């Protein structure tokens, strides 16, 4: 994850320093305003903590071990702006003193892990935790997701930065001058490790520490859960209406996404691997499949297994276009609403019969 010097071209390094700089500036201003004279000791200790956290080796399921970067934990305990600065300082010390990550590549490492990582972790935590009470298991799940998502987004950014090097920086003979692998190799190589082991380590640490803090030091979780305190007060009055306020952004986002579904019509052709049996005999479709499969032409007839299985289930709304609707755009929106409605109904039913809910009601 820590990109050493030599993998990125100096122009990429400069661009990523420039990308991180406004975030450093804004976060320093914001943190200074809220911490005043506490700024220096607070950030120093937190940077030291981020550094030491990476030394904790964690046994992972499957017999391997890994360590967390602590992006999620820092963002939850300190908020995204202070976390950004603390992790950047820890990365700087690692680069200069311990040679972990490059000095020229420091801007890139800070942008991926400290800046984007902190913002993603905090965003995911706030959205998933919503108005859940400070000691709720929902917050532990939110923390786990925050850590896992943040480390994977940071890894994806790292992979993209490494993966664009060969196409941008190559000499006349076609020799890659910096990181040698294109995106199609860099992205899977980076993501396989992070979606599994590194992501898992981050998930366990973030969730485990948040669960521990809930039991032992809940005041530390207040920065990232200001609404939780109100929620607990309101819950005491028997008003369970916090759900709407807490999840309002989610509902608005869901509605916007549903209305935007006709954008899918802009994509021409058929999705790779989602062919129907009749597509194998249609000449135009055959040409599309060949072009999308690296000039490998498909077999002349649909595989027998595909033909047999395809007839087992016929979708009620084929191709997101209900047969009774003339407008394709309206059909898309209707299909999205129908699908979202079904999913919500399923979760509502699960919620009704869930043992967790029964336990909460008894209490």
């Amino acid at each position, binding site marked *: 994850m820590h990109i050493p010097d*030599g993998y990125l071209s*100096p122009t990429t390094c400069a661009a990523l320093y420039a990308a991180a700089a406004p975030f450093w500036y804004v976060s320093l201003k914001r943190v200074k305003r809220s911490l005043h004279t506490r700024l220096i000791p607070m*950030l*120093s200790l937190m*940077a030291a*903590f981020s550094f030491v956290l990476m030394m904790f080796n964690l046994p992972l399921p499957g017999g391997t071990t890994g360590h967390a970067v602590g992006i999620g934990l820092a963002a939850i305990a300190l908020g995204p702006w202070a976390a950004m600065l603390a992790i950047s300082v820890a990365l700087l010390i690692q680069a*200069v003193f311990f040679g972990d990550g490059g000095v020229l590549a420091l801007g890139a490492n800070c942008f991926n892990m400290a800046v984007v990582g902190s913002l993603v972790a905090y965003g995911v935590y706030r959205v998933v935790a919503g108005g859940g009470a400070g000691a709720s298991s929902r917050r532990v799940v939110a923390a786990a997701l925050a850590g896992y998502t943040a480390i994977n987004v940071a890894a994806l950014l790292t992979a993209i930065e490494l993966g664009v090097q060969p196409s941008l920086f190559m000499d006349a003979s076609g020799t890659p*001058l910096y990181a*040698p692998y294109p995106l199609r190799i860099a992205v899977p190589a980076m993501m396989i490790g992070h979606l599994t082991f590194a992501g898992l380590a981050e998930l*366990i640490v973030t969730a485990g520490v948040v669960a521990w803090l809930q039991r032992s030091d809940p005041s530390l979780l207040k920065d990232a859960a200001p609404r939780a305190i109100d929620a607990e007060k309101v819950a005491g009055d028997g008003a369970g209406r916090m759900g709407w306020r807490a999840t309002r952004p989610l509902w608005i986002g869901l509605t916007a996404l549903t209305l935007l579904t006709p954008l899918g019509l802009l994509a021409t052709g058929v999705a790779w691997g989602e062919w129907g049996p009749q597509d194998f005999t249609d000449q135009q479709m055959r040409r599309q499949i060949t072009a999308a499969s690296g000039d490998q032409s498909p077999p002349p007839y649909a595989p027998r297994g595909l033909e047999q299985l395809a007839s087992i289930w016929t979708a009620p709304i084929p191709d997101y276009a209900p047969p009774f609707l003339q407008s394709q755009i309206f059909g898309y929106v209707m299909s999205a609403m129908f699908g979202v409605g079904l999913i919500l109904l399923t979760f509502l039913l699960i919620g009704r019969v869930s043992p967790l809910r029964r336990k909460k009601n008894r209490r």
Partner: protein
Amino acid sequence: MEHSAAAEAAASKPGLLQRLDPRVKVAGLLGFLVSSALAHRLSTILGVFGAALILALLSRISLRRLAKRGWAGALLFSGSIALPAVFLTPGRIIFRLPFLDWPVTTQGIISAALLIARVETAVTLSLLLILSTPWPLVLKALRALGAPVVLVVILGMTYRYIFLLLAAARDLFEARQSRMVGALKAAEARRFATSSIGVLLSKSLQLSNEAHLAMLSRGFRGEVYSLDEFAMRPRDWMALAAFAGLAIVAIWTGR
């Protein structure tokens, strides 16, 4: 902790780099780093690497220490990343591996060599700075070169507290291990690690409050002043000119 003690010891030896003004060292070694990053030719990067080796020898920094602390790790990590590039980079095929029939291309070999050479040069240059300059002086040099004063103070404090927190973490493990017979199961070890991290987080915040109160009681009002006691001597100017000249030559020849 051992590394930093060794770095302090190396920085106190009489040698070329140790005698130079820290600002010159930081600027000069950074210039070398940039020139090796900009170079498109393997020969130029190897030239910068050679210059770094000569500097190490003149500064009584043993090559064995450089190999142990930097080269071996970098070679293992970057070597394993660079090796597949020899076969995967498209280009002129020189030969095919027997049995496996994988093509080895000129472009692949040069690309892997460029990557490894750049990484090794960068590692050597940053080790040279750390092994010839005590950390407080590196920070002062950063300040003198225009780094924001808040950043420099935070870096200094962070560095000190890393050791304190490392010692606290070690104590946590020792306390647990001294009360335990046999090994923990994986799930228990995970629980122990996460609760130790939680304890350490609470401790860090508590310490930051105490440090803050201690600073306030000694008159801290949020402003930081640093003493700039560096003075450039003739040999520092000569060294700066040499660093700049070599870096420009490297950038010129490496195009």
